[in-house]
């Protein structure tokens, strides 16, 4: 086996990976990005539930013990499958204590010091405010219900070219119409234009330390249809490693590498947070929606029946993002759409005994599917997730040809987390069951545990070596030259969608990584502008092996 070499090896091409790859390549370093998923764009993103097409190719769903994680699995990572809601985290989240009893963020970071980095990533992703004309029926209904209950409601800032959006609601399968401004439109083509070598279907398995203090990364290549099949293997030596495989995968790679790297900091694979996520499904009473909220569509015939129409979350309630409330009592509530097949099973029929997710009553609930409204709650959890021994490859034992696996994460919610979930459930009920508008139930945690699309904090930054795996420059403690820039670095739940914060932190980490690379003899500068308007069509190589 020949061993290649490069200056910087980046693992994963989501927010953390793409941002690092761009800046380091633009600064003159030789950069290789290894990404386990395929490289897809536009026409590849089918409107189809068939296994082996759209969704399953670009997703990774890993069931753990008490928590399941849904993430992206493709070049562009989560940005390809996400809903592109990009709010900044509220000021108080940076002051949180969480499970460690004192401020968990590094002292150098608060909302004020992060704002300039938020500005940069917002410029690159083209984050825009939506108008009420952009707000879909589902978002409008949620806003009207909030208003009726004396609450406020905000159209959320998004990174979507609204002039191209057809409200098809296949957004999670990748945007067919190039309306979602994923990383495939910004950092990734910009990185490629500066010479970054992005290799899809390459899954990193292990990192080794070499005698000269540099690193060797071992990977396997993955079959483009059956991800259970590994088609080859290889190794690349690099002076700097940027790990950005996502909070469900980065700690697994590090734990598997302990034999060859030496002991990991205690916090690697601990303090995992699901961003406090929880989901509720409301089944609306169409007559009450018309009579109480005064809403109607198409000449007054239908009040709502629009579950299938739209684009991700467009409206959020932020009334409980109130710094004066106690920790675990703060949360946001966002309307969103989950397609059938990826969440329908977890909805519970109202008013029936457990288990309420299957059987005749659930079938009747499915018949009202057009009248569903899903509310997504982002609460403050207690960072209670812990990763067990790593599986032989990747971050899970793969079950299905694509998407589905069983992983080593365990999550046993503490009373703090449970109380946050209960408060959010009660608030949603108060808003949506008022005046008979709907019946609301929470998704069951019995089947696949809690469910998160926002994995965070499994390898977090911090000032205290006992509770953080990385220093505040994102360098892995005790392993100079290894940096982590993905969601695993975020210290805890944010009460809002996390991608903009992950991106801002990655942008903030770059000057330090450039400095470390220079100290290791890499000729690289810092100072490239954020990539804006790089290309109007996404960069793709098709599916290369």
């Amino acid at each position: 086996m020949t061993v290649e070499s490069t200056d910087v090896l980046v693992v994963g091409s989501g927010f953390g990976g793409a941002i690092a790859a761009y800046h380091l390549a633009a600064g003159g370093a030789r950069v290789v990005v290894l990404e386990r998923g395929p490289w897809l764009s536009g026409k590849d993103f089918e409107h189809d539930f068939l296994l082996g097409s759209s969704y399953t190719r670009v997703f990774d769903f890993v069931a753990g013990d008490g928590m399941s994680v849904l993430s992206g699995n493709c070049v562009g990572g989560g940005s390809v499958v996400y809903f592109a809601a990009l709010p900044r985290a509220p000021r108080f989240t940076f002051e949180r204590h969480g499970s460690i009893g004192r401020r968990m963020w590094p002292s150098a970071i608060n909302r004020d010091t992060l704002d300039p980095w938020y500005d940069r990533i917002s410029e690159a992703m083209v984050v825009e405010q939506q108008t009420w004309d952009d707000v879909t029926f589902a978002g409008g209904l949620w806003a009207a219900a909030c208003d009726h209950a004396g609450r406020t409601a905000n159209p959320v800032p998004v990174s979507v070219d609204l002039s191209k959006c057809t409200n098809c609601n296949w957004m999670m399968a990748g945007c067919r119409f190039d309306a979602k401004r994923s990383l495939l439109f910004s950092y990734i083509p910009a990185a490629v234009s500066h010479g970054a070598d992005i290799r899809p279907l390459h899954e990193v398995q292990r990192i080794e330390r070499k005698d000269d203090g540099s690193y060797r990364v071992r990977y396997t290549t993955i079959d483009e249809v059956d991800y259970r099949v590994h088609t080859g293997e290889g190794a690349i030596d690099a002076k700097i490693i940027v790990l950005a495989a996502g909070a469900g995968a980065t700690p697994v790679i590090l734990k598997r590498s302990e034999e060859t790297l030496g002991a990991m900091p205690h916090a690697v694979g601990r303090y995992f947070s699901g961003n406090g996520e929880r989901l509720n499904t409301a089944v609306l009473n169409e007559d009450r929606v018309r009579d109480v909220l005064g809403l109607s569509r198409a000449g007054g015939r239908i009040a709502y029946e629009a579950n299938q129409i739209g684009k991700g979350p467009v409206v959020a309630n932020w009334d409980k993002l109130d710094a004066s409330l106690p920790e675990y009592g703060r949360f946001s509530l966002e309307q969103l759409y989950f397609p059938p097949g990826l969440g329908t099973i977890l909805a519970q029929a109202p008013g029936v005994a457990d288990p309420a997710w299957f059987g005749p009553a659930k079938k009747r609930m499915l018949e009202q599917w057009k009248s569903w409204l899903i509310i997504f709650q982002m609460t403050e959890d207690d960072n209670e997730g812990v990763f067990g021994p790593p599986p032989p490859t990747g971050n899970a034992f793969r079950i299905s040809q694509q998407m589905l696996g069983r992983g080593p994460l365990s999550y046993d919610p503490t009373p703090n987390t449970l109380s946050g979930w209960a408060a959010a459930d009660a608030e949603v009920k108060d808003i949506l069951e008022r005046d008979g508008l709907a019946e609301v139930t929470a998704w069951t945690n019995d089947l696949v545990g809690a469910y998160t699309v926002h994995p965070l904090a499994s390898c977090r930054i911090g000032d205290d070596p006992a509770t953080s795996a990385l220093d505040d420059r994102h360098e892995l403690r005790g392993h100079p030259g290894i940096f982590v820039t993905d969601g695993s670095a975020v210290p805890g739940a944010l009460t809002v969608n996390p991608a903009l914060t992950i991106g801002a932190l990655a942008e903030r980490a770059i000057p330090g990584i450039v400095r470390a690379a220079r100290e290791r003899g890499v000729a690289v500068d810092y100072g490239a502008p954020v990539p804006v308007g790089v290309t109007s069509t996404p960069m793709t190589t098709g599916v290369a092996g």
Partner: protein
Amino acid sequence: MGSPTGDAEEIQVLTLEAYADTIIPGERRSADDRAIAGVAPGGGAVQAGALEMLNDPATGVTAGLAPLSQTLNAHATAYAAEIGLDLDGTVPPFVSLSYEHRSALIARLVAPGHPEKDGWVLLALFSYMAYDSAAHMHTTDAIAAGHPGLLSMGFGKPDDDGLWRFREHSYGRALARPHPNTTSSGSPA
């Protein structure tokens, strides 16, 4: 109807159909349909294609279907003994249970802490997916064929090019006051 000691494949099909029908129940295909319990009108997971779905190797569960259906029948026999039910012997034990008992047994098998939970959850998941998303077929074909799950959920039809678009998508008016602590760019302050 075959005897439970008869054709192994037939036993497996009946048993898995009964499992899928417990998850999303449907109406009987004929008067002597025993796999489907017949507790809900319209097609259920079986009519939606649960067996086709489970037999698709892409699921990763195909090799487990024989052991799972054998184990399910063993659980059904033990369950019947435990609560003093007579099994009728002309059909596999799980199929012999009433819907109420099938459901109660599955509730135990998928409950947190059950050692075989993973396998039973996968069986439920793919039974579900056959119904709620017809994931064993192209979605456009499923809709054209009147797939019972997508039809009963009211899943909308695509445009002629097989892609979905919703021109009418917004109430088009302000429906709430935004939070007073919102920045000019639309974020929480």
